[in-house]
């Protein structure tokens, strides 16, 4: 009897939403690419001010699922997403939601740095301009500086804001893209393997930046580097063959995972 009681209390604790500040939650999410069932019934909660890492072998669906979180999959004709994905309490797949507005709130950084072929200044100013976030030049200047500072690249570019963004090094370009993503004041930042094209020093700088961004944003990062997931995230989700196999505290996943498939993957065994 006592055991059942304490078990109940435990469950109550776990499901007590007040304890955790949820930013996004997904329920029964399915993704089909034509006949391929790419994401199978995924439920997950993304906490506010927390870095969540998605790991898994190639083709496991982690990037596909990430792209569901700001409706990037809408751009792929044969892709069909079902289920509920809530940002705060709003279903992002609701017809009334404008995907462009959504993507300002849920920003994205890609694997390869992709600055616009414009000046560093205009790379950052582009989003705030189209979303009407600045009333005048002074405000826009302010947004550009703040974003570049948060992107930890201000000191390196402040003297050449009108030089082309494409002239920066790979690591700088990626931090510029992160600064660009946060210029529209998003609430969630999605990162799809943001360091896979960077050298270890630039990677460390981006990782440090991710840790700083956590003060204000929810960050969801897809990474092939398990060590990176271990270093930067508080929560880790392991995807395998379209299933969310295990989701929990990063420290738990990397020291004592529950599922043998997670264990096989993170320890580098054939699984």
């Amino acid at each position, binding site marked *: 009897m006592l055991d059942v009681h304490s078990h109940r209390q435990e469950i109550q604790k776990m499901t007590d939403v007040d304890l955790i500040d949820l930013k996004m939650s997904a329920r029964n999410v399915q993704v089909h690419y034509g006949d391929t069932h790419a994401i199978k019934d995924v439920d997950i909660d993304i906490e506010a001010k927390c870095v969540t890492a998605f790991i898994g072998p190639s083709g496991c669906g982690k990037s596909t699922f990430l792209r569901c979180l700001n409706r990037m999959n809408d751009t792929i004709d044969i892709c069909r997403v079902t289920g509920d994905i809530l940002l705060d309490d709003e279903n992002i797949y609701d017809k009334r939601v404008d995907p462009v507005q959504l993507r300002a709130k849920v920003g994205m950084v890609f694997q390869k740095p992709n600055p616009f072929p414009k000046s560093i200044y205009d790379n950052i100013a582009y989003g705030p301009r189209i979303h009407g976030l600045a009333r005048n030049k002074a405000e826009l200047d302010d947004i550009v500086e703040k974003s570049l500072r948060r992107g930890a690249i201000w000191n390196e570019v402040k003297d050449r804001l009108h030089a082309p963004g494409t002239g920066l090094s790979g690591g700088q370009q990626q931090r510029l893209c992160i600064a660009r993503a946060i210029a529209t004041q998003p609430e969630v930042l999605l990162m799809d393997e943001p360091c896979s094209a960077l050298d270890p020093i630039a990677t460390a700088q981006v990782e440090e930046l991710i840790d700083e961004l956590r003060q204000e944003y929810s960050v969801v990062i897809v990474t092939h580097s*398990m060590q990176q997931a271990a270093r930067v995230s508080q929560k880790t989700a392991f995807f395998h063959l379209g299933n969310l196999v295990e989701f929990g505290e990063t420290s738990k996943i*990397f020291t004592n995972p529950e599922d*043998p498939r997670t264990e096989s993957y993170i320890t*580098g*065994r054939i699984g």
Partner: protein
Amino acid sequence: MTELKNHIVKAFDRELEGIQAQIMKMGGLVEASIMQAATSLETRDVELAEKVRAGDKLVDALEESLNEEAAQVIALRAPTATDLRIVLSVMRMSANLERIGDLSKNIAKRTSVLVQMPAVGDTATSLRRMAREVELMLKDALDAYIQRDEALALDVIQRDHDVDQMHNTQFRELLTYMLEDPQNITACMHLHFIAKNIERMGDHVTSIAEQVVFMATGSKPDEDRPKGDQTATDLGPLLQEHED
């Protein structure tokens, strides 16, 4: 526990097997040293005692090379989950085994002194039995390690209670011998330290068994095992008589 498959990188498997083979070798040597030390005491065999003292060098060397290799695996392979637990438990176990080796060596040293004095009752035989108990515990703990056998490891942890009780009895007995004849005191003090050494060995074996549980399950066993050593609060027969 389900058997895990091999690593994709085969060298990683070889390294993990390497450190585990070393800890087993170290375990075997330490197991032997416990029994040899206790036998040398019982049979008053100075040569065997000398062998135990010399043999400890090898145990120390093994501990050092094990720690180096474990550090390399951590630095170069960044082990996680079971792999990490193997490396961590092996490092902790090697420290425990090294300490047991030192305690055996200390018994052997005291034996070299004790053979120059008359025997005190059949204490040496009782101590050899106590050592035998600890040696069996160590053997089972090492078997539990190889077989990832949590139940056997937990059994070893429970059995430390018996060793503690044997130590309590021994303590009382030695006090009585010393009260009977102060001439016995020097020998009895040495015998007492030997008993204490064996009791400490039991604690180290318990710690090894705890590492086996940690490695197999990912969590340490509950801290509710019986603590049996009462010598710290024992007043001794003389004081108790006065109390009556």
